[in-house]
């Protein structure tokens, strides 16, 4: 009995020191990680600050100068704003259309790519890595790169932006869709397979209905992102509201009313679709989301 207790104490001592060592090690790691992170942040900030034309501290007091210029001019010409809204509406519609088509086409491509690269569903299981790599690359190339090259190839217009955004969308959504499809229930697919259904029928009838609410939710989120992307691409030459914004803001004083009108339109659009897609996604996630 005495022997047993001694061994017990021994074991207790062991687990105590082992745990303390573990804690020490963990604290050291966390501490090091923290140091590294803080060092990265501080030194990174200093580099950015040094390489910038104006410093952070000097710039901070001036941060409102430009917005103030814009707002005051827009305020003085407030009467013109409704006219500007109307004038820029077609460009805004073009921007939204670019985003919508790109999302639509990209999402359809993403569904196909996702199904082709999901284990258990793939038409050609051996080609799964191939389709995955394709999606990776589609995701990795920034849309601005594709857009600029396409502008070179087919001239200025909405199509380069559509294609660029659609390619990126297909890659980004494809990955998400494939994660969703991975969790799909395979029983209906097997059931359909057993009646002699083709692959397309199996997917369309057995998989899509299951995953559609999730896909729709992701696609809506993407649409919202794509509206921004579409505006930005306009800024570098792909038309739409971004082009108008660039010209107005570049001219500076004298066109700040136009700039303000475009800001407001763009902001309102982004917030509108943001709220719309949040609401729709919320509905999809919490039942009632029958397609």
């Amino acid at each position: 009995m005495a022997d047993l207790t001694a061994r017990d104490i021994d074991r207790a001592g062991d687990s105590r020191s082992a745990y303390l060592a573990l804690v020490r090690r963990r604290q050291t790691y966390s501490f090091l990680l923290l140091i590294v992170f803080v060092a990265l942040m501080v030194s990174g900030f200093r580099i950015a600050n040094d390489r910038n034309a104006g410093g952070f501290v000097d710039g901070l007091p001036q941060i409102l100068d430009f917005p103030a210029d814009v707002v005051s001019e827009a305020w003085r010409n407030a009467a013109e704003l409704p006219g500007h809204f109307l004038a820029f509406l077609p460009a805004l519609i073009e921007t939204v259309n670019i985003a919508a088509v790109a999302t639509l086409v990209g999402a359809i491509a993403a569904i196909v790519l996702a199904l082709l690269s999901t284990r258990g569903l793939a038409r050609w299981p051996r080609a799964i890595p191939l389709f995955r790599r394709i999606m990776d690359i589609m995701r990795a190339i920034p849309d601005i790169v594709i857009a600029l090259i396409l502008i070179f190839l087919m001239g200025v217009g909405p199509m380069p932006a559509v294609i660029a955004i659609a390619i990126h969308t297909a890659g980004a959504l494809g990955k998400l869709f494939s994660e969703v499809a991975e969790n799909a229930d395979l029983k209906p697919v097997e059931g359909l397979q057993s009646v002699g259904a083709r692959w397309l029928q199996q997917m369309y009838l057995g998989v899509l209905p299951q995953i559609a609410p999730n896909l729709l939710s992701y696609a809506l989120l993407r649409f919202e992102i794509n509206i921004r992307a579409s505006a930005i691409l306009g800024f570098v030459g792909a038309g739409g509201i971004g082009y108008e914004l660039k010209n107005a803001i570049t001219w500076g004083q004298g066109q700040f009313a136009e700039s303000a009108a475009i800001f407001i339109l763009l902001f309102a659009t982004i917030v509108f679709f943001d709220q719309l897609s949040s609401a729709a996604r919320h509905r999809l996630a919490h039942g009632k989301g029958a397609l």
Partner: protein
Amino acid sequence: MLRIESLTKRFGANTAVDAASFTVDAPRMIGIIGASGAGKSTMLRMISRLTDASEGRILFDGRDVLQLRGRAKRAWQSDCAMIFQQFNLVPRLDVVSNVLHGTLGQRSTLATMFNLFPREDIHRAIDILERLGIAEHAAKRAEALSGGQQQRVAIARALMQEPKMILADEPIASLDPMNAQTVMEALRRIHEEDGRMVIANLHTLDTARRYCDRVIGMRLGRIVFDGTPAQLTTGAARDIYGAGADFSEDATSTEIRDRDLYAEAALRDAEATV
């Protein structure tokens, strides 16, 4: 009509079905029994070409089913309907649509995408549902039905295929005894009335005895028993299940009559304890 010749399936080092052979000359209702992992499911899945075989031949009316590819393979799948333990319906679609899926093998992809099923198919689907006693649920989503009802929808889908053969992989394993009985009776009736061959994997001896004309017993991938229900003695069952002398057949039972007895006994006992 069906002839299986040394059919083998290996998963890596593991041989799930090991040189199984048997012949069926006329449409019969055949039960396959065996312990879990004996290879029953694998056997059926090879016949319906859901899984590829490693070796052997499956001859149906003289043609080797294992050689079929593409369209011919799908035609075979449509000739040989499969019923699953978990029903494998499309839960979000309504019952009629699920039954109509039985015709997918014969319809063009595009037509099915847009739900263009001929009117006579729809009528036939309803007739089948009627026959199985679930026509009033036709418009409901499959997921809204009870297990027994869902399995009957699956049987309806199978019948919709106008199959030469129905394969059922433990069709009643996830059903309560009440529903199990309905489903087995439906299968038996189809066999008797339509004269279709039915091969069913079964978990329980008594079900096999009661509904089948012939019983095949599998153990560790091999066929170790092949005979009439009458030949299936408790001794034979012990061999199939690889069990010792303590083997109680009722451990596999799901039949209502037996279950009631069992429940009553438990109740009696419980009351005794109070």
